[in-house]
């Protein structure tokens, strides 16, 4: 498993970017309502974030769900830590917690 290029790629993306969203579709063209809502939340927060489209290769999603132990897409990672899916991120955004986590992630990096 350690040599699986998909797993290595996912881990590297999570390590190299402060905020990573694994979504269906791209930042410009989300292909699912839940991915779109999650991307919208991070656009509003105004900090740079990376979006990885899981649709081109079904193995990305399979391997990712193994890493996070989470069955659905989107999945959000901040500073290498799994934060949650669309529902959790939306709730955290609404009660201001997400802005705090994001601001803190950028103040230390």
């Amino acid at each position, binding site marked *: 498993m350690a040599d699986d290029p998909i797993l290595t790629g996912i881990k590297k993306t999570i390590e190299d970017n402060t905020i990573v969203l694994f979504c269906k579709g791209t930042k410009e063209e989300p292909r699912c309502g*839940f991915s779109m809502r999650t991307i919208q939340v991070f656009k509003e927060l105004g900090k740079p974030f990376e979006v990885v489209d899981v649709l081109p290769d079904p193995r990305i999603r399979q391997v990712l769900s193994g890493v996070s*132990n*989470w*069955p*659905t897409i989107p999945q959000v990672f901040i500073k290498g830590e*799994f*934060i*949650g*899916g*669309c*529902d*959790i991120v939306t*709730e*955290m955004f609404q009660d201001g917690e997400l802005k705090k986590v994001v601001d803190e992630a950028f103040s230390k990096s």
Partner: protein
Amino acid sequence: MEPIEIARRIEKALPGAKADVKGADNHYSARIVSDRFEGKSRIEQHRLIYDLFREEMASQEIHALALRTLTPAQADDESNR
């Protein structure tokens, strides 16, 4: 899968829980109140529910299951707002 089946499975797995499930066509949303959520992070609360539908989610019989998980105290708080 009917929303009522989803609600029953949740309520059976978490005794005392109250689950309201809506939706159709493989897309559902659930509001669940349970004392089993106490002391757990939101991620842990959602995993607890997703784990009950592992097979259906893998087979896409459930494509989306939006969750709102509340402890009884949070639910009281919400209804008093």
